[in-house]
């Protein structure tokens, strides 16, 4: 990596802002890729102009490569190239799956430390005074020369043993360096994303590694939390309520993480989550590699067997295609046109350029999209919910940038469900861009934490963000609560106009205020407004209906049964009456022959399960008198 290279996306001497706020960043530390952001701005590019930086380190002779350059070494120098180290942090050697074949640097039992995994790579080292492997003094930990006074002799190949923690330290150090070079400032703190399924040992290992890399860790934030922070920052997308159910679809390279979140006015908790390490971008790559290999053979009459490949030339060709696909997939995500895949000297010195259009691409990737759909359905079922209850889908992870995935999931959800694709926020590095969402959320969180003061009480508040804090424990409602305006003869579900105020799965205490106009009729008054407070149960009704008759359609044969289709609908059902509120109105105004007034209603849900409902008239005049009722605590 060109540590002293040019900075195509920024300057090393960026003007230092005159601000008392410390410089803090968010780091998305994936297993395959990492990225850094400061605030909501698009993530930071490293020296090579990359914003998605491959979690890879490669040793080649006396050189150390980090990031995407290291990944490129998987073609010819795979056994000295280390990838996938994040998921090994905090793991014992005996806990690792042994059957995984890998073309990258082998994982061995550490020669000196019991039950510790390690990578063995070969490097060239100046003899006779080799540097100890633990001396992480240079930026890239290149076993460089100039550190010793000993005159340099011919470098000799030696084995170097590195633990996953050591590798991760080198990597994070370089990441931090890139960010500081880009910002032109020292980074004073960082929030780092971690998978929700990491256990305490894994979290401790990440923290240790980050500290070893010189990072002041403000918080380790689970991925779903980082994404929730980003998606609740800034203005609400059209059609979204601050109280909503969000499905976070995180499709990375080697895994799929699904999280169903209850988002309640910026407070979030997980309703259900799942993790699958057999679904990811790698599977899409396998399909595409086969597709292009076939093309290659068709064009050149040169046989090429891939996925799996055994012959050495085939193995290299597969690795080359895998690298080239990064570009192909990004093109497919970014534009509706066709994308190319170009590899110089793919096999037997033959160059290859193939093209694939979006339709064909989606055909190849279909099985992965469908697997995500099935997993999402499973997850919803585990939470006793349906696709109908998903108000918003959020995409995280590189592979979730593919529009074909969104099109697949759209078949399940309601038309009103908001996705970053329907909201138009994916394109051009918008707020919904799945590849930057985590780093941005972590960065916002870092800013939030940096703003907390240092008084005694503030320190207590700060502790609430620490791992294992008891402040995260909360009680939440199990039924939705709202108000019902009774009607004389109503065919509405509940016998009147229903307004949901606090959906189930809302953590207490909670406060909600709503305002709306009320129709008071034609009579001159005095007027009063009355409504009932109810708990309701939500469900789904499935009906089999005959499809609407198509005029032009040929009449069916007599013995041919017309096929019924399933129609699903959300339902609500009265569960329990809680109270009634009556407001005598004084501010009613006549509009087009009918009297109207505007009402504000407030719900206060106590931590003890008590409910206080108040209503008052609002208008140009002074606010009206408050009418209140209380429901006793549980």
């Amino acid at each position, binding site marked *: 990596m060109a540590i002293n290279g040019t900075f195509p996306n920024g300057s090393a001497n960026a003007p230092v802002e005159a601000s008392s706020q410390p410089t803090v960043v968010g780091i998305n530390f994936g297993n395959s890729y990492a990225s850094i952001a400061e605030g909501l701005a698009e993530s930071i590019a490293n020296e090579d102009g990359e914003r998605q930086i491959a979690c890879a380190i490669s040793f080649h002779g006396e050189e150390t490569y980090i990031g995407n350059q290291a990944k490129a070494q998987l073609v010819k120098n795979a056994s000295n190239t280390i990838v996938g180290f994040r998921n090994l942090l905090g793991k014992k050697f005996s806990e690792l799956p042994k059957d995984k074949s890998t073309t990258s640097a082998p994982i061995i039992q550490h020669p000196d430390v019991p039950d510790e995994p390690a990578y063995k790579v070969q490097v060239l080292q100046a003899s006779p005074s080799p540097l100890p492997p633990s001396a992480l003094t240079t930026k890239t930990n290149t076993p460089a020369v100039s550190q010793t006074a000993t005159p340099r002799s011919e470098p000799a190949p030696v084995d170097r043993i590195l633990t996953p923690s050591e590798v991760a330290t080198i990597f994070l150090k370089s990441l931090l360096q890139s960010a500081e070079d880009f910002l032109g400032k020292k980074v004073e703190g960082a929030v780092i994303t971690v998978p929700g399924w990491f256990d305490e040992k894994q979290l401790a290992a990440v923290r240790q590694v980050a500290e070893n890399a010189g990072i002041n860790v403000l918080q380790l934030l689970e991925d779903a939390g980082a994404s929730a922070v980003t998606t609740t920052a800034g203005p609400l997308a059209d059609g979204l309520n601050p109280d909503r159910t969000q499905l976070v679809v995180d499709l990375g390279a080697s895994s799929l993480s699904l999280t169903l979140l209850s988002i309640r*006015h910026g407070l979030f908790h997980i309703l259900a989550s799942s993790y699958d390490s057999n679904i990811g971008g790698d599977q899409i790559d396998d399909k595409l590699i086969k597709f292009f290999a076939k093309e290659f053979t068709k064009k050149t009459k040169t046989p090429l067997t891939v996925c799996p490949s055994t012959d050495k030339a085939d193995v290299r060709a597969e690795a080359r295609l895998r690298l080239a696909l990064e570009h192909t997939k990004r093109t497919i995500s970014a534009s509706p046109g066709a994308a190319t895949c170009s590899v110089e000297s793919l096999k037997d010195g033959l160059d290859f350029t193939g093209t694939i259009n979006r339709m064909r691409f989606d055909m190849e990737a279909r099985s992965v999209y469908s697997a995500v759909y099935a997993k999402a359905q499973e997850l919803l079922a585990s939470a006793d919910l349906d696709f109908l209850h998903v108000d918003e889908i959020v995409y995280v992870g590189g592979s979730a940038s593919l529009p074909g995935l969104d099109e697949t999931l759209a078949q399940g959800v309601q038309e009103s469900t908001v996705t970053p694709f329907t909201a138009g926020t994916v394109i051009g590095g918008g707020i919904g861009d799945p590849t930057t969402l985590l780093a941005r959320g972590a960065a916002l969180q870092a800013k939030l934490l940096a703003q907390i003061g240092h008084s005694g009480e503030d320190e207590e508040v700060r502790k609430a963000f620490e791992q294992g804090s008891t402040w995260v424990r909360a009680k939440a409602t199990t039924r939705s609560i709202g108000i019902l305006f009774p009607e004389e003869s109503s065919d509405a579900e509940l016998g009147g106009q229903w307004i949901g105020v606090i959906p189930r799965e809302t953590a207490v205490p909670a406060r909600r205020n709503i*305002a709306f106009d009320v129709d008071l009729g034609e009579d001159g008054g005095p007027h009063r407004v009355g409504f009932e407070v109810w708990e309701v149960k939500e469900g789904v009704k499935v009906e089999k209906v005959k499809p609407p008759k198509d005029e032009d359609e040929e009449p069916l044969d007599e013995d041919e049964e017309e096929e019924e289709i399933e129609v699903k609908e959300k339902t609500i059902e009265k569960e329990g009456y809680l109270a009634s509120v009556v407001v005598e109105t004084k501010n009613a105004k006549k509009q087009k022959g009918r009297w109207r007034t505007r009402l504000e209603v407030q719900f206060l849900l106590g931590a003890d399960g008590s409910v206080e409902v108040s209503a008052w008239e609002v208008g140009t005049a002074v606010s009206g008198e408050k009418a209140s009722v209380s429901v006793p605590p549980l």
Partner: protein
Amino acid sequence: MADVLQLTVVPPPLPKSWSPQPPPAKSLSPLVDRKLIAAGPAYLAHVRRAVHNLSFEEHDK
């Protein structure tokens, strides 16, 4: 200040026959235990209220 969600629904006039039912001796359905994600400004506000034992209204100030 509380965020007020401005709605567009317009409930109809009250039926003449309606009178407020007495509240039943009933509370909310039981609450369940959940774990909040320690992130975002709303969580910070939630904790501040809890630490200082403030109501929403007191915290607004």
